[in-house]
Structure formats: structure tokens, C-alpha cells
């Protein structure tokens, strides 16, 4: 299956530009474009040059090591992998239903992760573009620039991320690479001192999260021509939802809607995900392209993440976030929003939901419970799914009788959004690049679109806010016209 602008008709005549990634293991972003003699865009590809070695590393390891090992997949959301792996292995140890204490501690950990990751995504990686402008001075387009120009906003963002990290530290044992979630439950509960430590700041975090929604909402309202149309495209949505259709980022069943908001399927047990989703392989990317089997590769690709979740659920079960969701839906005038930059608005609504949920959980005495583990009938296979900050995350394992993992399959959020991100980049390239000379500002337009979905490219390459990224322009004979590269230090080279 090939999409518009995915493959140029004369591609066999074109010279392939080889990129030497800074680090194959940790990921590298690359965008290639092919133009004709009039600089009209004929091909645009976002390549995630990602070595998925983890699925092999895990094979042959004892299953109980996996929830700790897989955290090394990601520097921004290790907790997501920690919990998704634990959920898959809960099934293996026969503990799909955890004790109340264990489930609530994991939920608290997960919503702490959502809070810190969304704060990082919005304040550190996106506000520099949104507040200074896509074409603004490169030197200040970063979180340190935000700290200098908007110290209050920076302080709020940094404090929100820090609070989320503290929730993770208290629940997982460490800010990163925690060890508390294990197959069948957790290995520690919260002390009252730890709970009180978090409680003293949680009201402020809710207030700041609410303020963040106000900021992004105001940006949308002040420039709808940009925010409603930049990188916009129609697609299906997918996420998990609670049994009553409410937003639940920790557990639920799969639901998908089409581009008009009609439900395609609902309450499907994610243990059956292989009957819903197929992954297509394309020769030009290491990353697969998942699609819904019932619609096929042409029409079955979908968005995941905040924009999908906020519009896929029927309600959000906390009051402030629910009021904001309703306003978001009203803004769409009865139709789903497909604007790429609306991801940020939805993301901030979720951050508010996470902050409110953390407060509710902290008031629950089950967090101090001592019944932390469950076991049951041993199984050979388990699938765990959560809504990670950037979208639906699947962990699938098979475990032998000797307790060693024999198969691992991970579908990460970035993979679920692969086609959507490619489409966003193509839309931006068509509108802003076609017929123009490449500039740093153009480069950043492409990056803004990618970043609205997923900053994990930055994360995976160990850069905050500055992806190593290369854009090449070639004419229809394959001749290189222009090339701009931004290295890992954010420095552009023509």
C-alpha cells in the first residue's frame, strides 16, 4: 500500500541518500523529500531509523526480569514500559485481577508518568515553538529560552515534571528505572509520610495543569488559521477506554472510531489485539505500519495518543478535565478535530486529568495496604496494554515452562502513529515547502508536526527539544539540490 507522496513515480531514477545515524540503537529521525524541476513535492518520508533490538534481548531472559529491563527502551517514559510489561506478565502468572492496593499503586505510578511526560512534552519541547514562533531565533527556541522569557511558565512546567517524577520515585522506588511493579502486583506500598509529601503539592499541580489548558486554548483561539489547519488530516482513532466508555489510561478495552467519530469497534479485549491489528512492513523504514484489519492498509491506519483518547472516550471521570473535554468537543462543532496542533490541547486536558486522578488516589487508604501480590494459574502467554503518554502501548510475551521468555512483541506508541506522523509531515511539506527553498524555519515546521505527536525521537537520541534531523531536496533526476542538517546539539549545517 502506497500513500500520496510516499513514493515518487520516477523513484527508481533517484539517488538514494544514505544517512549515517548518530546512534542506531537509540534512534534517529530523518525526513527525505523529492522534488521536480519546479520544486513541486513528489515524495516525503519520515524515517525512524530505530533498531528494535529489545524484542531479541528479552528472549531467553527470566520473565520476572522483563519489567525492569524494558524500561531502558525509553528515557521519557520508562514507567510505561515497566507497567505494560508487568500487565502482560500478570496474565502469565495468573493474576489479571490485582489486589486493590497493587492496582492503585500502579495507577498512581502511571498517572505520575503521564503528568511528568506531558509536562516535558508541552513545556520543554513545544512551548518554544508555540510561544516564540516556528521561525523564531533558533538560539532561544528551547526550554532555557522559555525560562528567560517566560519564567513563570517555565517554573510551572519544570515543577509539574518534577512532581510527576516524585510520584514515580515514591511509587517505583526511583525517578527512573524503578523496580516496584512486578508480575502479579507491586513490591512496596506507600507510607503515610510519602503520601503526605505528595499531597502537600497536589492542589498546586492541579491549578498549574488547569492553567496549561488555558494557555493552549488561548493559543488556538488567537490563531485558528494556524492551529486548526497546520498538518491537519483525517484518520481513524484508537485507544483503550473503561467499560463505561470513560477515559482510563491504565486499563480498559480497545475502542476505535472512524474519522467522523463513528465507532468501528468497542470493548475488545486487548488479549485479542492480533485479530484487530496487522503491521505492514515497508522497505524504506525500520518501523512497521500498523492498520486495522477490518479496513485494510489504505483506510485502516489510525492515530493514537491524546488527540485520539480525548475524542474516543465518552467522558473523563474527573470534574475539571471533563469540563475541558466538553469545551474541546464543542470547539469541533460536533465533528472530531484532526488538527495536528490540537494534540497539545488534548495533551493538557489529560495532564489535568492526571493531576486530579493523583489527588483522588492519594486520598485512598488502599495505598497503604499490605496485600500486594496475586498469583493464579500459570499461563504461557500474556499481553499487556496501557495508554502511554504518547499512545497505546502493547507488550506481548510468551514464556516457556522454564520461566524464560521465548517471544516478545512490542507495538509502541510511535509505531501506532507511524502512518499518521508521515501524513502530517507530508501535509506540512505540501503546504509550506513545495516550491520554496529550504530554510531552518521550514525544517522546524516539519519538526513541529512530528513533535506534536511524539518527542520520543528527541528522547531516543538524548536531546531535549532538538532532534538530529536531516532534510534533503533532490530534483527528479536524483540530483541533490539542497540539504540542511540539524545535529544533536541543535546546530544547523547547510
Amino acid at each position, binding site marked *: 500500500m502506497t500513500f500520496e507522496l510516499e513514493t515518487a513515480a520516477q523513484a527508481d531514477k533517484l539517488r538514494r541518500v544514505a544517512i549515517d545515524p548518530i546512534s542506531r540503537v537509540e534512534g534517529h529521525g530523518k525526513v527525505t523529500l523529492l522534488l521536480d524541476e519546479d520544486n513541486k513535492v513528489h515524495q516525503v518520508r519520515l524515517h525512524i531509523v530505530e533498531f528494535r533490538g529489545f524484542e531479541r534481548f528479552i528472549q531467553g531472559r527470566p520473565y520476572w526480569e522483563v519489567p525492569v529491563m524494558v524500561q531502558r527502551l525509553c528515557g521519557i517514559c520508562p514507567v510505561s514500559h515497566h507497567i505494560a510489561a508487568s500487565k502482560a506478565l500478570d496474565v502469565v502468572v495468573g493474576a489479571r485481577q490485582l489486589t486493590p492496593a497493587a492496582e492503585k499503586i500502579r495507577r498512581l505510578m502511571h498517572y505520575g508518568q503521564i503528568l511528568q511526560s506531558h509536562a516535558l512534552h508541552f513545556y520543554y519541547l513545544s512551548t518554544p515553538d508555540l510561544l516564540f514562533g516556528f521561525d523564531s531565533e533558533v538560539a532561544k527556541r*528551547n526550554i532555557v529560552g522559555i525560562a*528567560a522569557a517566560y*519564567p513563570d511558565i*517555565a517554573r510551572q512546567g519544570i515543577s509539574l515534571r518534577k512532581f510527576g517524577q516524585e510520584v514515580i520515585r515514591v511509587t517505583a522506588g526511583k525517578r*527512573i528505572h524503578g523496580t516496584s511493579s512486578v508480575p502479579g502486583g507491586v513490591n512496596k506500598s506507600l507510607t503515610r509520610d510519602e503520601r503526605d509529601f505528595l499531597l502537600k503539592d497536589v492542589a498546586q499541580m492541579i491549578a498549574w495543569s488547569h492553567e496549561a489548558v488555558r494557555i493552549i486554548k488561548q493559543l488556538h483561539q488567537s490563531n485558528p488559521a494556524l492551529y486548526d489547519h497546520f498538518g491537519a488530516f483525517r484518520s481513524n482513532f484508537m485507544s483503550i477506554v473503561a467499560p463505561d466508555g470513560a477515559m482510563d489510561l491504565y486499563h480498559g478495552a480497545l475502542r476505535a472510531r472512524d474519522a467522523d467519530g463513528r465507532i468501528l469497534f468497542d470493548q475488545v479485549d486487548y488479549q485479542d489485539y492480533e485479530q484487530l491489528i496487522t503491521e505492514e512492513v515497508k522497505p524504506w523504514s525500520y518501523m512497521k505500519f500498523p492498520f486495522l484489519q477490518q479496513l485494510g492498509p489504505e483506510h485502516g491506519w489510525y492515530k493514537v495518543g491524546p488527540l485520539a483518547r480525548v475524542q474516543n472516550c465518552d467522558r473523563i471521570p474527573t470534574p475539571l478535565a471533563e469540563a475541558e473535554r466538553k469545551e474541546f468537543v464543542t470547539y469541533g462543532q460536533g465533528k472530531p478535530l484532526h488538527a495536528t496542533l490540537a494534540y497539545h490541547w488534548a495533551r493538557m486536558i489529560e495532564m489535568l486529568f492526571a493531576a486530579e486522578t493523583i489527588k483522588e488516589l492519594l486520598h485512598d487508604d488502599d495505598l497503604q495496604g499490605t496485600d500486594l501480590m496475586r498469583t493464579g494459574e500459570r499461563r504461557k502467554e500474556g499481553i499487556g496494554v496501557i495508554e502511554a503518554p504518547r499512545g497505546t502501548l502493547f507488550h506481548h510475551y510468551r514464556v516457556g515452562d522454564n520461566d524464560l521468555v521465548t517471544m516478545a512483541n512490542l507495538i509502541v506508541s510511535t509505531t501506532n502513529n507511524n502512518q499518521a506522523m508521515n501524513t502530517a509531515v507530508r501535509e506540512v511539506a505540501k503546504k509550506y515547502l513545495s516550491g520554496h527553498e529550504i530554510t531552518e524555519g521550514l525544517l522546524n515546521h516539519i519538526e513541529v508536526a512530528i513533535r506534536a505527536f511524539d518527542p520520543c525521537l528527541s528522547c531516543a537520541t538524548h*536531546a531535549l*527539544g532538538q532532534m538530529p534531523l536531516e532534510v534533503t531536496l533532490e530534483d527528479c533526476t536524483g540530483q541533490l539540490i539542497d540539504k540542511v542538517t540539524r545535529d544533536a*546539539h541543535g546546530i544547523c549545517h547547510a
Partner: protein
Amino acid sequence: MPNALMTANRLAAPTLIFGWGNPSRGDDALGPLFLERLETLAGAHPEWGEIECLTDFQLQVEHALDLRGRARVLFVDASVNTPAPFTFSRLQAARNASFTTHAMTPEAVLQVYQDIEGRHPPPSWLLSIRAYQFELGDSLSTLAQENLTVALMWAEKSFLACQTAAELPARQNREQFLETDGYRFHRDRREQKAQ
């Protein structure tokens, strides 16, 4: 509690010691190991006052918030660009591009603090311990172990024994320590061994 290493309760102890590095990458573990060993010593030294030890794999923007309410801060890191066994220097806030990488400098962290708090950061120093190897899976090199031991001895006698910034004339302090306290350090020979 006097002299408590408050890694758990997050109260702002007057002295913060922040060591960073990846414990799985050979000598990059020097910062975290410095803190680990300091924690074992602290119980016997009530005169050091309250100390909080924090460690992470790398310095990040949000570590600026860890500086709140401190009287002094000591950053501890491994370095290949410093003379053995260690160097000790006063830090000043500085705007640089390190925030775009995973290796944010302590100067940049101080700058973020200054920007978001609207005031000067607490007096801060950097203890750079000479390191030699950083491969994944490496253990701490013999030379780095020796440097760590000497750096800890110096910290006990110098930084932690001083209660005010004025008591810390940085370079002199280090040189005097190496010359007069019996830690004859044969730099040339060690460098040859390292090569």
C-alpha cells in the same frame, strides 16, 4: 535529624551533594559511588550538619528545583578532562547549549535556577574526579578507584569540614591537601599507567 542524609524525605537540607553518572558505564559511576560512600561515612560525622545526597544518570532542567533552600551545593562528576586525582572549582551560572543534550552542565542548571527563581543560585562547586574508561559493562578502573578514595578523603577534610563558603579557597585547598596530608600523588606515573 542532625547529619541525616535525607534522600527519602525531600526536605531541603542546607548542603546538597549531587553526583551524576551511569553506574553501568565504568568510571562514569564515580559520581554516584562518591555519594554511596559518603552516606556510609556521614553517620559518624554530626559536625557536617544536614546533608542531602541526590543522584541521577544525568543533569536535567528540573534539577534546578533541587537547589531551592540550599546553603551550598557540591556537584560531583567523572571527568576525562581533569588532572588526577580530582579538581575542585567554584561554579557560576552560565547560559550554554548543553540543555539540548543529555549532558547538561551544572553551570546551565544554575542558570535555569536563576531564570525561574529570579535570584542567584546558592554557592556551588564542582568536584571533578578523573576517570578513564566509560564502556558499557565496564567496572570502575583501578585508577578511578584510587581517585575516588582521595576525593572522598579530601571532601571529609575540606568541603564537609567547612560550614561556610568563605572557608573554601578552592584551588589552594586542593593543592594543600595533596601536598601536606600525605597523599603524594604521582600524577605522571598514574597518567602513564592510564595510557
